[in-house]
């Protein structure tokens, strides 16, 4: 096992029940999803000591990254970069986003710095040699997904309360082979009922209605069913298990060759999706 894989939970456990007088940066990317190589979309929240979220479009921040040198046992400064604020739910909830390419795996340390020089507590996080989910530039994983034609009704294949049948018209493996760009949302809308998460299926639905012929548009549910006695009994849908997502939701955009041109964890803005669709169509 990688040494830093043990280090991070240890650091968190050491922090348990200890005072946290300063603001804290929270990396919201899933475990194993940040890798060396292609530009990574880091999601960064800021918490006040009382837990209040502090991310705001009115508070510009800069991200400072250090690499934790395991030999010298010290944090080595690598780069500073501005972060942008993005709404996950328009005018309701937002988060800071940074686009960073990592040159080496291991433990990295993120610090957010405000314009007046206030720094968050340094937050360690892991960068893998290769992300656990498909990266930009790689072939998408071609697997069948459930479609309306193969189901008794839409309710049995989606938890979207207002489902668009067009998102369940074609299986993922067929979409990736028909020469058109493909936009797919892996998400469980039913678990996004409290406005705490980005409505990615609604975003994809809106784009599909605006540009129906520009791509294959799919929504794939994360779980086989959410109608379970206990949430501990949830089972991943086959397509989701094949993609090995540790978190949801995700939106992937592939070009006509089935190669990933963009991937979005947690939420996608209309601007991000428009740019990805344009890149996939070139």
């Amino acid at each position, binding site marked *: 096992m990688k040494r830093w894989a043990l280090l991070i*939970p240890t650091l*968190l*456990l050491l*922090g*348990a*029940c*200890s*005072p*946290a*007088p300063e603001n*804290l940066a*929270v990396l*919201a990317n*899933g*475990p194993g999803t940040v890798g060396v190589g292609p530009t990574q979309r880091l*999601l960064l*929240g800021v*918490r006040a*000591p*009382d*837990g*209040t*979220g502090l*991310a705001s479009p009115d508070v510009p921040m800069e991200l400072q990254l250090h690499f934790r040198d395991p030999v010298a046992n010290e944090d080595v400064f690598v780069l500073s970069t501005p972060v942008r604020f993005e709404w*996950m739910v328009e005018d309701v*909830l937002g*988060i800071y986003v940074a686009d960073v390419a990592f040159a080496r795996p291991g433990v990295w340390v993120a610090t957010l710095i405000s314009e007046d020089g206030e720094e968050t507590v340094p937050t360690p996080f892991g960068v893998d040699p290769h992300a656990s989910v498909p990266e930009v530039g790689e072939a998408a994983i071609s697997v069948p997904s459930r479609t309306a034609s193969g189901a008794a009704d839409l309710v049995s294949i989606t938890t979207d309360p207002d489902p668009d049948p067009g998102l369940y018209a074609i299986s993922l493996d067929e979409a990736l082979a028909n020469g058109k760009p493909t936009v797919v949302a892996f998400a469980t809308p039913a*678990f*996004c009922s*409290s406005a*705490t*998460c*980005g409505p990615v299926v609604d975003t994809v639905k809106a784009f599909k209605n605006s540009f129906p012929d520009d791509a294959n548009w799919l929504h794939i549910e*994360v*779980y086989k069913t*959410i109608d379970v*006695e*206990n*949430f*501990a009994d*949830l*089972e*991943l849908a086959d397509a*989701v298990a094949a993609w090995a*997502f*540790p*978190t*949801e939701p995700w939106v992937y955009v592939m070009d006509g060759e089935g190669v990933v041109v963009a991937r979005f964890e*947690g*939420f996608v803005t209309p601007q991000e999706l428009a740019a990805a669709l344009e890149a996939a169509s070139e």
Partner: protein
Amino acid sequence: MRRSIAVFVIVGALLASCGGSGDNLTGSIIEVSGDLVQVDSFTVLSEGAAHTFVPQEGAKFSIPLPHLRDHLRSGEAVEVTYSEVDGVLIASNVVDAHEHP
């Protein structure tokens, strides 16, 4: 009668010492360890302190625990019902805090 009361008091004291009564804590999620099926632990920041919880095995949670990652992104508060056993915080339920203002 006195014997029954004595037994009741002793049992009550034992349960209290195990933390079995269930405390509540409201705060912001700052770490989730696990995947889309199983969450191994999660950490809540509340009133300046970080508290790491382990889900109680077999407990029926009001929300699927992987949903806590949405709270990790959003900063929306959660309310945890828990007990402390041998220094470990065992969570028996988690709800979106805004549902319990």
